[in-house]
């Protein structure tokens, strides 16, 4: 079981690194927004793995909250980009 958890966390970390690379490279703001959204999803996934490791149910509402805030943030940022470009 320990090996499985190590593998899963390793893969999630690699995914997070690739996402951060896109976040730094991204030609446009919208690419960066997409990368940030993926990053939030990865944070949620890693927290879920933490819960699975320690069988600690008390952090479950936190995951729901993070997913919610990530959605609101990405949606607002995308709308904001649209408005910026219009006023340019």
């Amino acid at each position, binding site marked *: 079981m320990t090996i499985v958890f190590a593998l899963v966390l390793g893969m999630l970390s690699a*995914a997070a690194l690739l996402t951060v690379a896109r976040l730094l490279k991204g030609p446009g703001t919208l690419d960066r927004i997409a990368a940030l959204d993926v990053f939030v*999803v*990865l944070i949620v*996934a890693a927290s879920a793995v933490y819960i699975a490791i320690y069988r600690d149910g008390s952090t479950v509402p936190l995951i*729901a909250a993070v997913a919610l805030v990530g959605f609101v943030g990405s949606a607002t940022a995308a709308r904001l*980009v649209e408005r910026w470009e219009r006023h340019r």
Partner: protein
Amino acid sequence: MLRDVVSSVFLLLGALSCLLGALGLLRLPDLPARLQAATKPQTLGLLLILIGTAVRLEFENAATLVLVILFQAVTAPVISQIVARSAYRTGTLDRDLLVVDELTERMERERAGGGARGADHGRGGAGGGDRGRGR
């Protein structure tokens, strides 16, 4: 024991899906393709990981995790759609690469037909009009 095996399989598949999605996000050439990679494999990966976690928890907490799954499944397409629309309207999207382009046709039709049609005019009309002037 059985729970551990089931949970391991789900967790590994989910992490693999997340990794492939991130790889696609980095490697694919343009924004729509990247959005594809950012939305579908990530949702599937999160779903599998949350199932794998829920197997190891007692019932109440697992129910909350189902809520998170539902929420993610609803919001990921919305984000993708908003970002893609924003790219389309601001002109960041390369329109020569599109195979089907129904939005431009529709916006032109609405502008030709007077445009003013209730609540739809407020946002669609404003974006269309602005783009028309820009190009």
